[in-house]
Every structure is written in structure tokens, then in C-alpha cells.
């Protein structure tokens, strides 16, 4: 009896944890959506935006959502990422955009105590993030890899086929959307780049020449087809999450 109870208890616990996890991942999804949206409105380039998301994900790998306000962490992550990737953003702009995100169609904030407190919070949180990540805030992103791989793959294709097939757009879109989840911190940037390009080529049914090696084997010697498939399915799941979260 007791074992049964404990078994069901542990099952419940497991379910509970996973339920919490599911809830957390939804929160993370929403906050990352917030980061990306804010990034677009601030005119952030793709690499600083990626850095902001990675900072956020890494922070919550070791910190708890119950303790820290995720949206504040997100704002500070944007601010910090701007500094790291040399696209400096003003706190005033970040606060303006975020304020309007939460209060649509509202008047811009006045230069009052609320504004200054919020600004203070962002700056303090920035320091917190730095400490939490041991000041390791410089990351390698898949963007440059995906672009280099694109150029190499382009050389394999007929120029007309290339120019009519939006491979680059799809690969970059998939890459950008991948930041809604934590794939960006769990896989190597080369693998992520490869997978998004693979996905794009598969989408359009592009036929590439065959040699002793497949193109993706050449580009990343240490990856297997299975791994690519795994990453791909994770990427595609993110699109399903969108429906659940927004």
C-alpha cells in the first residue's frame, strides 16, 4: 500500500514538476518573445538580440523564476547585450518601449520618480546578471556560421535555382525563432546553423549533388543525421508553442 501510495506520489510529483516545467517554459517563451519584439522596436541587430536571449536563458539555468522577475531580467539582458555587442542602447529607450509593451497606446513616461526607480532597477539587475554568469557574457552565435555555410552551399547550386529559392530567408528566420527556446544554450552554434540550413533546404526540396560525403558532413564533421533530426524537431516544436503561449 505504502509503496503504491509513494509510487503514485512520486508520479504526481513528477507530473507536478513537469507541469511546473511546462509552465516555466511557457513563461520563458513569452519573455523571449518580449525580448525579440523589443529588439525589433529598438532597431537591434541580429547578433546583439541573440546575445540578449542567451543571457536570459543562461541566467535562468541557474536562477529561479520564483525569485527573480523575468521581465526585469529581460530588460537588463537587452541593455547588457547592447554593451557587449557594441550596439549601445539607451535605458530611456528600453524603458519607453517596455512600458508601452505593457501599457499599449499609453502616453510616454514622465521624468518622475517612477522612471528613475525603474532605471535604477535595470542597472542593478544588469550587475546581478553579470555576477550570476561569472562575467562570461561573450558568446559565439550561429549567425556567422549559417551565413558561411550558405555561401558554400550556394556554390553547389545553379545560380537560377538559388536566386528563386528563399533558402537564406528561411534559414535565418528559423534561427531567429530558435531563441524563443533554450536550444541556443544547449547546442553548439555550428550545429544550430547547420540544422537551420538543413531545414531550409528540406523545406523547398532542394537537391544537392552527392559526393563521398554529404554537404553537412563536410561542414560539421562531428554531427550525425540523428542529431540533426533531434535539433530540428526541437526547433519545430517552438512553433507549436506559439499557439499555446500567445
Amino acid at each position, binding site marked *: 500500500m505504502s509503496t503504491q501510495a509513494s509510487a503514485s506520489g512520486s508520479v504526481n510529483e513528477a507530473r507536478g514538476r513537469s507541469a511546473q516545467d511546462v509552465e516555466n517554459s511557457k513563461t520563458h517563451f513569452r519573455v523571449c518573445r518580449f525580448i525579440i519584439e523589443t529588439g525589433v522596436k*529598438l532597431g537591434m541587430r541580429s547578433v546583439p538580440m541573440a546575445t540578449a536571449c542567451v543571457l536570459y536563458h543562461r541566467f535562468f539555468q541557474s536562477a529561479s523564476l520564483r525569485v527573480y522577475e523575468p521581465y526585469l531580467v529581460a530588460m537588463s539582458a537587452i541593455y547588457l547585450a547592447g554593451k557587449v555587442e557594441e550596439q549601445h542602447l539607451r535605458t530611456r529607450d528600453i524603458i519607453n518601449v517596455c512600458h508601452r509593451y505593457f501599457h499599449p497606446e499609453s502616453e510616454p513616461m514622465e521624468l518622475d520618480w517612477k522612471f528613475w526607480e525603474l532605471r535604477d532597477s535595470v542597472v542593478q539587475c544588469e550587475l546581478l546578471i553579470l555576477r550570476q554568469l561569472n562575467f562570461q557574457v561573450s558568446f559565439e552565435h550561429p549567425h556567422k556560421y549559417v*551565413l558561411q555555410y550558405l555561401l*558554400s552551399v550556394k556554390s553547389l547550386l545553379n545560380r537560377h535555382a538559388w536566386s528563386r529559392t*528563399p533558402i537564406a*530567408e528561411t534559414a535565418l528566420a528559423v534561427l*531567429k525563432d530558435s531563441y524563443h527556446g533554450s536550444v541556443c544554450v544547449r547546442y553548439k552554434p555550428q550545429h544550430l546553423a547547420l540544422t537551420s540550413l538543413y531545414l531550409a533546404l528540406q*523545406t*523547398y*526540396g532542394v*537537391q544537392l549533388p552527392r559526393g563521398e560525403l554529404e554537404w553537412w558532413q563536410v561542414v560539421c564533421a562531428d554531427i550525425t543525421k540523428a542529431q540533426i533530426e533531434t535539433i530540428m524537431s526541437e526547433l519545430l516544436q517552438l512553433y507549436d508553442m506559439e499557439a499555446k503561449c500567445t
Partner: protein
Amino acid sequence: MMERDLLRQSVSYHGDSLLSLLKCEQSENPDFKNVAADLSKTTSQRDKEEVSPVLEQFIARKADLLFAASWKTSTPADEWQEDPGEAYAVMPPLEQFMEVCFEERRELFYRDVERGDMLIGRINSVRDFGLFVTLLCTAGGLERDIEDLEIKALCPLREVPSTGNHDDPLSYYQIGDLIRAGLKDIDRYHEKLTLSLYPSSLAPHLDKVKLGVISKEDLPLHYIRGEKVVADSSQTYEKLLESSLGLSNPLNVHFLLGKLGISDTQTPSLMRGLQSKRFKEDDFATAIRKKQSVSWALKCVKAGVDHFKSGRHVDAMNEYNKALEIDTNNVEALVARGALYATKGSLIKAIDDFELALENCPTHRNAKKYLCQTLVERGGQLEEEEKLVTAEGLYKRATVLDDTFQEASEALAKLQLRIQKSLKLKELEAAKEQEKAKTVETSAEKLRKILKEERRMKKKRKRSTSSSTSSDTSSTTSEDSHASSRKKSKKRKHKRRRSSHSSKKHKRRVSSCSDKTVEDDWFPAPANTSASYINQKQSISKLISEGEPSWGKSRNEDGRGRLDDAMDRSLENVKYGAQPEASRLGRPEANGQATDQHRSLRDSSSSTQSEYSLKSDRHSKEFSLLGRKRCESERGGNDKTGRDQEDQGKSSGATLKKDVPSGLFNIFSQIAEFEKEKKLKK
């Protein structure tokens, strides 16, 4: 609009499963319905081994984005850069790493190479009808591994440009040379390539590249690196990439995106919520900031207005300036600051602020109102300073801005009347003075003409005809400048003096000009003038002896020189034309000295001359008033001395001596020396 071909390609690759999913997911999409019929026909085979339902589901759901005509935003930038440097990593062709088989590479090459491409090869034989080349690699856009394919191409004689000397152009080329050529023609069926060394055979974006013999350094980077890989098999793609400098370039993403034609700040996304049409302009940072700046600035302006009303002008100004720092060209702040300036009396600054405010917001009522008031006030100030035309301009602007503003239109009307009156007055005066001048001059005119006549002849011969014609025209322009200058004059009294003075000079010049025309009549005169010279001499000596006390010391020393100088200057003015005079009059704020200095700098033909004209201008005014009559009578003799000084190299001196009695001539030369000394001292 969906891309039919793309869809077809995708469906044929994935098979029926995709098609059914598409139909399911895209049932709402009208664009899809158009294409759906076509698709059903295409499917049957399935090329791929595995089934990937997740992917197919994804494709089906996002088909409206993935296959939309507008999805493809990239524009291939076609310029071929000679040396991209290390902006990104240039890699050898992927074919090489993949070890694509011989046949396939060959097939792909013949499929994909096109007219206008650039190829590099080695000459393997030189025939009388052309060059045979074994291809080494591709250059330009296409990157393929073709060296071992040993493809041969012909560059016929007609496609080889001549080297200039009349040798056979082919003699320039030798077996083993590396040449870069354009693909002129291709016969895919027979696998025949025709090369050309003319730049016209290349595609437009490549036409800057030099064709012909090249050296090893000119080989494309992808080929050179490929060679290294062949030599060293441990060099994998990854290793090569990681070790290349281009990968470490922090801006490589930016550069490569640019090369692809995709914007870095607006990369595409497949998430529904991140589609660009979902974003509103007002939510962007710059828009919010602008609104916020305006609001913050307004707060400062309000505070400033409070200060202003309580009389704390300094504080008010500070607040306005703060507001303008937060939001430059903020309309309210500008209007408020303008009002403050106007109250303090800085009308020009006030007008500037109001004008700027109106530029930004043409319908601002207060700006208009205040501007009109300030314009009228400023107009009044200008009227007192006699700047009538500027004042008129301001009144006109005020009436244009607000035609109901009575003060402005009244002021304008008053001013216009005043201008007309002053114009009439000036005309009357000018007429009077012309009369006077005429009467004065007619008495001495004959005498002067007699005395100067020969001098004039000589002068005119020496000087170009253009100068005399210019003096004709300039004398007429000076008339006009008189009329206009009157309007612009600062002080009417000074103007009167100057104008009368100048009109006199002008008259002198006119008559001197007319000397030319009447010189024939005056020829016999010289015989009679000797007697008048004697009279002249006496009056001159009287003048010289009495000159000092009568003219006053300060002027005296300059006086004698000036007397001559004035004569000389009036002669010079024949050359310079009335331009200097007119310009002097034309510039209202110019004081005599400044313009004279300008003139002296400009017209430095006879430098000593202009120096004196400097002083003579300043004082010639008084001189002319006082010594007018004397001037006329003594002109004859002094003209001669002046002439002596001037025409040092002129032969007229010789003729002069003939006409003048020797005794008189001695006196004159003494005077000349005396004055020379004076001038040197100065």
C-alpha cells in the same frame, strides 16, 4: 501570391503526405486554392528515404509564409569584388570537400556555366586559328572544382585583341601561360566552350576585370586555398574555416547579410506574432522618444512662462533653453523664447525664433501674432536708422503673414509714402546740384579742355579702348547707383555730400570723356593758352605760398599732394571707371576708408597713386567744397604736374615741355619733387 514552382518542387520532394497536409492547413488560403489543382498532378514519386511528418506539418502550416512571393527579400548583389579581403572567410568549393565524382562535377559544370562567366586556364597550344586552353578554375561568381576535369576550351583568333604593334597577336602568348578569359559562347550539347579576351564578352558586373595573361598571385582565393587542401588532407572544411581570419571579423555577419541583401535589423521570422505587419510605428523607440521629448520640453516651457510672468527673465530663459535642449525646434519653446527676446529688445533674435517656429508649425497662431508685432517694431527701428528698404521688407512680410494686422499695413503704407518722398527729394537735389555743377563747370570747362586735351590724347592711346568704353558705361551706371544708393544711405546728409561730390566727379569725367569727341575742335586752342598759363602760374604760386595757412595744417601737407592726387585720381578713374565710386556709394555701411583700402588693394596698377587716392578720398570731400573754384582754375597747371608724376615713362613729358614755358615748368618740377618727398615720408 504563391510561388507555384517552389511549391511543386517541395511537394514532389515530400510526396502526397505533404500535399494532403497542405490542403488541410491551407484550406483558408485563397492563394493556395489557385495552385492546389496543379499540385495534385505532380506528385507520385518520393525521392527522400525518410518520412518526416513533423517537418511536413511545419511546411504545411507555414506554407503561406514560406511560399509567398514576398518572402524572398534578398537581392543578390552582383558586383564581383576583386579582393574581399578578410571580411569573411573565402572557402574552397564545397564540391572539393564533398569529393563529388568526376562525372557529376563535369555534368554540373556544363549545366551551370553561362555566357559572360570568367574562366582561368593554362594555354596548352597555340595554333594559327587561336589558343587552346585547359581550364584551371572558375573566377567571378561561380566556384567549382574543375582542375582535374581537364576541360579544354578554344579562344579563336578573332577574340584575341591585338597588342598594338602589327605583329601577330598570338605571338604574345606562350604555352603554359595562365590566362583569364570570358566565356563567349557555349554549346552544351557538344560540350564546346569558346573563350574571348575582350572585356565585352564578360557579364556587366565583371567588366572591370582585366583579361589576358595573369600571374599566380591573380588566381582566385578559393582556388589557392583549394590547392592547400589538396596538398594537406588534414585540412578539413571546419579547420580551414575556424582558422581563417574572416571568421573572426566581428562585422562578418553584417557584411554577409549585406552581400545577400537582407537587412540586419529586420531579419525575417516564421512566428506569427513577429511578422512585420504586426508592428506599429508608434511602438518603436524613436517614435516614443520623440513624443516624450516634446512632453518633457513642454513642462520646461510651462515653468519658464511662470518665471516670465513673475518677472524672473533669467530663470525663464534657462527653462526655455533647457526645453530646447531636450527637444530641438520645439515650437512652444521657440515661441516663448522669442517673446522673451522681444520683450528684452533683442528683436532680431526674436524674429529668428519665431520664423523657426513657423517653419516647424506654420499654423501656430501665437507665433504668427508675435512675429507680426515684432516685425513691425523692428521695422520702426530700421526706419529710424534710415534702412528704409529693409524696413519695407519686414512690413511686407508682416502683412503677408497676417493681413488683418492693421498696424503692419498702416506702417507699410506710411513707409512707402516716405520712401517716395525721399526719392523725390533726392532727385530734386541731384537735379539742383547738376545744375550747379554745370554752371560751375561751364566757366572752367573750356580752359580745362584746352589744357588737358593733349594729355588725354596720349592717355587714351596708352590705355586700352576697353577702359575708356568701361568708363562710358560706368559713368552711366554711376547715375543709377546714385539713385539706388540714396535709398540705402545711412545718413542722408553724408549721402548728399558724397553724391554731390561724386556727381561732380562724375561730371568731370563725363566732360573729360567728351573731351575725346571734341578734341579736334580744340586743337588750335593751345596757341592761345600760354597767356592763360601765366595767369595760372601766378595763381598757383599764390596758392602754394598761401596754401599752408589757408588750408590748415593737418590737411595742408596732404593738401598739395591731394590736389594733384585728386586730379590724378579723377584721371585714374577714367581707367578704373566709376566702379569704385559707385561701389563706395552702393555700400551703405562702408566708410570711405574701408572701400578705398579695398580699392587700393585691388587696383594696384599704380600703387603710389592709390595710396594717395586713399587719403584724397577722405579729404577730397572737404577739399572739393573749399577749393572747388581753385581747383578748376588751377587745374591746368596742376594737371601738368600730376601728369609729370604719373607719366614718368611717357613721351608726353617731352611734348609737354614744348607747350609750357620753361620757367613754369621748373616750378612745377620742383613741386613734384617736393611732393614726392612728402609721399615717401608718409
